[in-house]
């Protein structure tokens, strides 16, 4: 049993007019929650599709659960929720789920038991109403998302891959999804999800990999990544109006290289040679009404902006989570 759930080595995928993924390597340890972060068009979905053997890489190798990714037997241990969701509209919910279960190597009976469990758990089956007997297109969008989610987890996969799972979810379903991810992790499953929402990634992930324009920018355990970029970030809160003297201090690039106005407080990044003590001195001297001055670890959001840079933002990234 390999220690790695997924081992991607030097993978390249080219399309007619562009390179979607260039020399990407990443390792996902078993039993972790792994976030694949990047702006839209960074190559997240292409990478996921290659891991799932939906498309083949032009170069490099991918091993999934210790087996080559093109080994068909691996697919029965994988659950996949694609970014673009959809089900057979005219089929009954239970029939769709049975079909998806059998495609993942379950017997019809085993699938039926799991369907019962999940319909109850996600309250798609109550004493009043059994949505399992309804057709998919009779369900609300939120309910369809639940059904799709059941289809992903029905066969109790060891590896769960979720592509942009939070997009289009209402807050209740989003919370249910987070709870489920945590529960899967507790049961020793490996979860990979791609997102451009840094907040979710920060709260859920053990490991992250940030990719932009098809190439890896950084990866590693979230704590390590933060430590590497830490020690230089300060949360600053002021009461009342910001005076011009304070603004001058914050604009001094020998002290502060980056200011992110978060409304409730500022997230500051110190210049390389500056110290927190020096900044505090200058702020006090400028008469700033400080209510909070704290050395913080950078948010993934900050790290993301810092590493991917402005170009990533221009490519349509929305990092606000």
């Amino acid at each position, binding site marked *: 049993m390999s220690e790695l759930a997924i081992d991607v080595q030097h993978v390249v995928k080219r399309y007619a007019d562009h390179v979607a993924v260039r020399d990407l390597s990443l390792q996902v340890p078993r039993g972790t929650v792994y976030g694949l972060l990047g702006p839209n068009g960074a190559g997240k979905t292409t990478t996921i599709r290659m891991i799932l053997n939906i*498309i083949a890489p032009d170069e490099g190798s991918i091993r999934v659960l210790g087996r080559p990714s093109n080994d*068909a037997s691996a697919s029965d241990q994988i659950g996949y929720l*694609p970014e673009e969701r959809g089900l*057979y509209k005219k089929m009954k919910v239970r029939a769709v789920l049975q079909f998806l279960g059998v495609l993942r190597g379950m017997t019809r009976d085993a699938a039926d038991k799991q369907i019962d469990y999940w319909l109850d758990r996600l309250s798609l089956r109550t004493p009043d109403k059994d949505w399992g007997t309804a057709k998919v297109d009779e369900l609300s969008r939120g309910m369809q998302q639940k059904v799709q989610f059941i*289809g992903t987890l029905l066969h109790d996969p060891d590896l769960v891959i979720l592509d942009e799972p939070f997009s289009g979810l209402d807050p209740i379903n989003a919370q249910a999804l987070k709870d489920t991810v945590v529960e899967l992790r507790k049961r020793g499953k490996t979860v990979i999800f791609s997102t451009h929402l840094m907040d979710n990634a920060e709260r859920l992930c053990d490991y992250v990999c940030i990719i932009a324009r098809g190439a890896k920018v950084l990866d590693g355990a979230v704590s390590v990544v933060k430590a590497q970029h830490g020690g230089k970030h300060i949360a600053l809160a002021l009461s009342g109006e910001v005076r011009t003297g304070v603004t001058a201090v914050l604009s001094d690039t020998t002290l502060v290289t980056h200011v992110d106005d978060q409304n409730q407080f500022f997230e500051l990044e110190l210049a390389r040679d500056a110290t927190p003590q020096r900044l505090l001195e200058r702020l006090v001297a400028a008469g700033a009404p400080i209510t909070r001055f704290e050395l913080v670890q950078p948010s993934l959001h900050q790290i993301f902006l810092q590493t991917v840079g402005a170009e990533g933002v221009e490519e349509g990234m929305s990092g606000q989570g």
Partner: protein
Amino acid sequence: MVRAKLWAVIRREFLERVQTRAFVIGCLLGPVFIAGVLFLPAYLALRNVRVAAASSLIVIDATGTGLGERLRTTLTTPASAPTASTSASHIEVRVTAPNEIAAAESLATKAVIAKTVDGYVVLDERTLRGQRARYAGRKATAVGDMRRLEQALRQSALAQRLATANVNPSLVDSLSQSRLVLESERLTEQGRGSDASRRANLMFAGAVAFLLYMSMILYGQMVLRGVLEEKTTRVAEVVVSSVSPDTLLAGKVIGVGAVGLAQQIIWIVATLYLGSLLAPMLMRMAPPPGQMAGADAANVPTMSMPDVHVGSLLVILAFFILGYGLYASIHAAVGAMVNSDQEAQQALAPVMVLIVSSAIFIQPVMLNPSNTVARVASMFPFSAPIIMPLRMGLVPVPAWELAVAILGLMAAVVAVIFLAARIYRVGLLMYGKRPSLGELARWVRQS
């Protein structure tokens, strides 16, 4: 394991389609339609015969010989012993002087217009010489009626001339009684068939060709819509993460093919059942054979079974499977190439040209199943599935031609499936612009 997944795909494709209202309605209406096409002409023909038998006629006899009386006897007396209820015909003979024909005719014309009679016939000198007679009436276009009248006239004129030549009257009757019917037979290696079974064969072969043609279009479209649905609802991505696109394609084509086969079996069985109910009804309608002159008898479709052998049924099945496989794969590739129904219909146009041009050959081949056009069309892979079974139902086809058709079709099916599977694999997850031919070629190369 792969087999279990393939089976799951086939099962879904089959069950989801046979449970639709469209399928059930199709199964119910199909036999009604087929029975209508097969039995309505027979029903109408039989009704005409009955009407003809009940027709009324004025005979203007200006020959001065009693030819009119003879004609009446010939028309009203069946060859065999007259049965009850036969002579509903009302025939009135008006003996006229040759110079009063015009007056008699205008009188008769009034009767026709007043609908007291259906028509009148004028007999004169020339009729007696065996040259001509004239008929005018409301039914001048009813071919069966006219043939019957013509034959009766010839017979009566002959009898009259024999009588004028002083031949013994009893001899005249027995000699002039002629009900000659031309019975044609179809000679094949399997033996001979009657004229009726030849017509049944023609009808059967035509029906089979039409059914094959319909199923290529119908079930091809079904495959296309299925592929398009998976693509537009994005289900395809989940499914191909569990099974290979090739398995999905195979399952879809086989599943829809099974739907087609099931529907056609239901149609055929139901049509035969309806036929067994309707045929005795038609038989009861038909007058006893003796009452109809030969020409009439030939016009009435007889309820005769086509001489179909198990061997030819197997060949038809083989052509159905190969032809369906060919066109279904093409349709699947088209479905994977496009993003909407509208685009699909556009991209499908070249495929439809192939199918429809095969159907255009059906009629010429039925008329002339052995000429070069028919032989080439029956061996060309894209028309063979429709034209070859048609030809085989009509004439004995040389074994080598059948072999060329089947082997060529098999080769085409393999080639098309190979190309279609590659286009399908790439196209299934491609959205946006429809690919150009160059891009298609790249899809085929890269996958």
